């Protein structure tokens, strides 16, 4: 069995000096698969992704990526290892053009020609971005902004892309477009770690899933298994009205 790409074990993390949001969160992310983390609001899903990429300080436990411990590293150092993250708010530069935003996706690349080639490639793959290359990112629609944010991660050819609620605030038609981008990433050999409030859709596209509640990982396994588990269905997939207590 090959070593996992990303291994998170027993981490505790929170914002500033506030209480810990994650109490004992763990996750094993295997190579070239789509992983989906589900859980109710406030479970710590976004906190987990932010902790992985160094935006929050890990108080306990560890995050290991390709055998390298990430604890204590700065976000820019973690990104340089091949991790990309699209947060909920999409992290675009509103007063930069679409092309400039894409260039920022390859900020760490030294070869300018190669960067331009990849920007061109991405604009070809996502024609809507090519059509709007001179437009400021702040003037794009929600769906276009999300496309830009996700497409931008491809510039640096990361090994893993973490997406926090890619469907948030988008119309159903656009949501399926976003998930086809997720699928395309995975087919291209990129591992995707997804946090999704829309649990059913997220799990349908995922190979593996994890359930997070009250800052703890309470289940991890094949996505299909989670979709069929009656207790998870009842508690987290809107299958019943049971009082919510973690499993």
């Amino acid at each position: 069995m090959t070593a996992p790409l990303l291994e998170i074990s027993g981490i505790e993390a929170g914002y500033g000096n506030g209480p810990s949001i994650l109490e004992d969160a763990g996750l094993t992310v295997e190579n070239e698969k789509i992983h989906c983390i589900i859980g109710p609001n406030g479970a710590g899903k976004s906190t987990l992704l932010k902790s992985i990429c160094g935006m929050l300080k890990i108080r306990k436990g560890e995050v290991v990526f390709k055998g390298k411990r990430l604890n204590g590293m700065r976000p820019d150092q973690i990104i340089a290892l091949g991790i990309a993250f699209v947060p909920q708010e999409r992290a675009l530069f509103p007063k930069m053009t679409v092309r400039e935003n894409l260039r920022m996706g390859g900020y760490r690349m030294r070869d300018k020609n190669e960067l331009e080639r990849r920007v061109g490639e991405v604009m070809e793959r996502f024609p809507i971005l090519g059509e709007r290359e001179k437009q400021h990112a702040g003037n794009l629609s929600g769906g276009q902004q999300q496309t830009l944010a996700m497409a931008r991660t491809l510039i640096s050819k990361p090994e893993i892309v973490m997406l926090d609620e890619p469907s948030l605030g988008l119309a159903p038609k656009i949501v399926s477009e976003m998930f086809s981008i997720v699928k395309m990433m995975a087919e291209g050999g990129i591992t995707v770690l997804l946090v999704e409030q829309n649990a059913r859709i997220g799990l349908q596209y995922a190979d593996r899933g994890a359930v997070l509640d009250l800052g703890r990982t309470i289940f991890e396994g094949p996505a299909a298994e989670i979709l069929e588990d009656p207790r998870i269905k009842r508690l987290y997939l809107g299958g019943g009205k049971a009082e919510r207590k973690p499993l």
Partner: protein
Amino acid sequence: MTDILQVLILGIALGGVYALMGSGLSLVFGVMRIVNLAHPILIIGGAYVAYWAFRLWGADPLATLPLAALILSATGILLYKLVFEKDAKSAKYSEMTVLLTFSVAMIAEGALGSAFTNTQRVTSPDYATDAIFIGDLFIPTGQVYAGAVSLAIIAALALFLKFSRFGYAIRATTQNREAAELMGVNVNFVGVVSFAIGVGLAGAAGSLISFVFSFFPGKHWEWIAVLMSLVVLGGMGSVLGTVVAAFALSVIAAFVGAWIGSTWSTMTFFLALFVILLVRPQGLFGERPELA
């Protein structure tokens, strides 16, 4: 008509210098969220570098401009490391920097005052007292030189910000610090370098004002309101906005000075600051501040 053109030319020439003075302040606010009330005293620090180089070695302030910029940049790095770096992640950072930079301004004023006294100084290269005559129009050579050099420096800064890799990092950090980090930008390093550039611009501006205005350490109080009005009208953090505001207010101040009286000329900036904050607090190119 000639009168109007004359005033307009004088306003534009000075506008370039104001633009350079304000652009460093704007850059530092944009990237670092530091409201640098010490910027004017640092400009005066640059003016003293030019003054002493002129007085001791007869060096032209235009020639010693890079030296002033370099010395002030180094001062900026030191200042950042000693004063600002520690609390850079605090949620109340901007508010804290108002008090911190106010203290720095007071200390620097005291230090410069005790070293060089509060006597008015000015460098006097030949061109400072020359003038160019075009028909009936009179253009002070010193102001033209200062304005032209200022614009050249601002143009170089704009090209650097627009096209260089590090310029992208600065612009990205200004617009969305967290997103810049996620693109692999070391935002702390960008912050230090931007602060050094901003203070270096103050040094360069100091060299230029050394032959355009007389200066002394206490003069920075007057400059604070002038520079704040430029930065606020332009939109906090927008270098382009600051440049546009500098030319607009400088021209208005020149007309006020010519038609109402020179004492009212400076008042234009103070009044503008007050009115902008009341009517359009986000300025020309800034985003509307959240009031809640």
